[in-house]
């Protein structure tokens, strides 16, 4: 009799242990795969509780709107970084395509042609980057540093260094009107996240890009057309920058040659925060979303708390360092198994 009770107690204890183990492993998995998502959820709850005015519809929309430009471009930057490359020209492309859109709209009087011209202009710069890097084997850092200057210069030349006011007000709808109470740029950003999320997770293109970033030579020997994949990534990046530039010019009702200065660093920072490896080969779309949101939320909260701009820079830099440290800590735990 006693023995049966003992056995039951034992098996109950064993079952409980197993449950604990499962929960443990589940939590470990979440942390390993989407650590930054967890960090953001915690951060969001904390901000909602402690920061007055943070968790209101108006602020939420404002927050989302503030990250649209970075968010869109981060999607393609993720592919560039995941393939082991780097693109510094994104800020310049944003300005360039905005200027093109403004100029073409004013000259043709057609909003659609203007917007299309802006987007195609961005794509063309991307194709140039891609061709120089993937076909002519230029170092991506140097190459995009050069195109960054060339394209910024181009924007300045076309605009004579001053903002070009757009004369046709219909164009402003793109950036300033809402559908179901949510501004258009947010919808477009969501769409871009979905498209590139699918591209990363569910297509051979995404897997090829990750493979190339993980080991370029092995990928080539496995039959992947490395230069085509890379070129495509840069071209897509150009198009998305073009879209971002056109939307921005619509929001500002003008094409401005100085817009997007330093944008490339914010975008890369958001990617790194989102767990995208600068060495290539590792990227997740949910991590990226968390990275972009963390960047935007920090900025938003600092504004709500009336922290002076100068201090904001310091805080943002510090957060980037903390994020990278966290990531390294996580990877050290993982890589213990790697060897």
């Amino acid at each position: 009799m006693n023995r049966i009770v003992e056995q039951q107690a034992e098996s109950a204890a064993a079952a409980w242990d197993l449950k604990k183990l499962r929960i443990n492993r589940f939590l470990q998995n979440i942390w390993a795969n989407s650590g930054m998502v967890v960090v953001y959820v915690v951060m969001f709850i904390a901000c909602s509780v402690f920061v007055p005015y943070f968790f209101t519809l108006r602020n939420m929309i404002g927050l989302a709107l503030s990250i649209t430009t970075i968010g869109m471009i981060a999607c393609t930057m993720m592919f560039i970084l995941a393939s082991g490359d780097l693109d510094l020209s994104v800020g310049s492309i944003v300005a360039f395509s905005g200027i093109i859109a403004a100029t073409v709209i004013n000259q043709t009087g057609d909003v659609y042609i203007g917007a299309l011209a802006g987007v195609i202009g961005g794509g063309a710069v991307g194709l140039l980057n891609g061709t120089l890097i993937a076909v002519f084997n230029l170092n991506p850092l140097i190459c995009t540093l050069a195109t960054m200057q060339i394209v910024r210069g181009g924007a300045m030349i076309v605009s004579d260094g001053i903002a070009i006011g757009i004369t046709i007000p219909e164009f402003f709808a793109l950036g300033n009107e809402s559908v179901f109470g949510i501004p258009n740029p947010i919808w477009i950003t969501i769409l871009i996240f979905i498209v590139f999320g699918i591209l990363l997770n569910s297509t051979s293109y995404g897997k090829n890009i990750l493979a190339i970033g993980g080991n370029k030579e092995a990928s080539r020997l496995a039959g992947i057309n490395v230069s085509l994949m890379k070129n495509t990534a840069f071209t897509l990046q150009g198009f998305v920058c073009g879209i971002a530039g056109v939307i921005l010019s619509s929001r500002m009702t003008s094409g401005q040659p100085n817009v997007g200065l330093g944008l490339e660093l914010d975008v890369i920072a958001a990617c790194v925060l989102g767990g995208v490896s600068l060495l290539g080969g590792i990227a997740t779309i949910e991590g990226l979303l968390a990275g972009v949101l963390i960047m935007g939320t920090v900025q938003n909260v600092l504004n709500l708390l009336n922290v002076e701009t100068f201090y904001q820079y310091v805080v943002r830099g510090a957060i980037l360092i903390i994020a990278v440290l966290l990531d390294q800590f996580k990877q050290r735990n993982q890589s213990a198994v790697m060897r």
Partner: protein
Amino acid sequence: MNCFLEFQNITKTFPGVKALDNVSLGASKGAVHGLVGENGAGKSTLLKILSGAYTPSEGKIVINGETKLFSKTRDAIEAGVAIIYQELNLVPEMTVAENMLLGKWPRRGVFLDRQALRERARVQIRELMEDIDPDTKVKDLPIGQRQMVEIGKALLHDAWIIAFDEPTSSLSRKETEHLFRIIRDLRARGKAILYVSHRMEEIFLLCDAVTVFRDGRKIETFETMEGITDNILIQRMVGREITDMYGYRPREKGAPLFEVNDLQGPGIREKSSLSAARGEIVGFFGLSGSGRTELMKNIFGAIEKRCGEIIVDGKPVAVKNPFSAIDHGLCLCPEDRKYEGIIAVRSLSENINISSRRHFVRLGFFLNKKCEQEGADRFIEKLHIRTPSRDQFIGNLSGGNQQKAILARWLSEKVDVFLLDEPTRGIDVGSKYEIYQIMYGLAEEGKTVIFASSSLPEVMSVADRVVVMCGGTIVGEVDRKDVSEETLLSMALPKG
């Protein structure tokens, strides 16, 4: 036991894996202690603990009676430990002297004392019976000399415990002999030496004692090599008896399948031709630098050939790059698994499906995840790939399992000609046996297998026909029935 170095009850666990389980081991001064075991048996983990790269979960290291706790590699170096890894830890862009004294460059005031640096390096080099200019950049040295630089570095850092991890895997025969002389010399000078190798003959040549590992546990330590044979060690390593390492299976040769005519290109100096039939296993034998790897890469389109024709199944095919090669039914398992084969940060499944997924993507673009998972699981089972799951990073698996995954990559493709460059390099005995079995299986299915190897016994025992290379060209062919070590070597050695 009065051992200079003692591991006491070392256990090392990683999440989900017990890499070492209660291992105790002692090494004495003036002796070479061999560590053998299959890949993943725990030898490398033990060395990593000795080097301070890992901290043990339990147990301790005792050196000269003192308990040591290494939390970083610097601690180990200061305690007189040096590890000579398979992939050497040298800075290729720096000179020999700078590398040898890395971390303790002599200084005059705040400036580097170049003269002293050069002089101390030169003395050490002379001690190692080498003729190296201390001002040469390490990247310009052949691999054997780089290893000597690494050993010199260890000696200059006052190492008393020197551990070698597969030091001969990329050395020529001559370099190996020189290395052995140096190791014996170190032993005579009273160093405690640990020696990890898969090559049994080396263990017998060098070691005074040997310890066998299996699955993270110490199986047995033999304090003397007397009366111990290959078979005893291998049996302990594998846990069962392997009577014939190679297990050759004879088979019928089929119709001609593959032909290379007058190929010339980078690394292939003279026009080379060869042909192979369905169901045939052809071995490429040659010393290192003979052009084996280059010939395979030229055929596969990995390097651009200058001229030559490739014929598959009677039709000439244009192979411009690896992709077109695969399309025409050729594949290559590269020699350097780590840099040319695996994508370490991606999963086993992704590594297997990287090429073949093109046959089952939807709309030419969207992954068919179910197909990929099933394919990966099928090969994990069929090739006995030891892994916790198909989603494991391939970089976490042992060399033998990585090689099987690369084979699975091509087994899942539609290819007929398998070019395998050193398919068993750095792989444990058990996995080697399994890889030979896979090769026989392929041939039995009517595929053509061409493999390159620098191991004579391997080429002689596995291949149906041996093609010998020397100096960047094919110098001859020997049939399996006529093959002997002397003929192969005499053909492979450079003339004149």
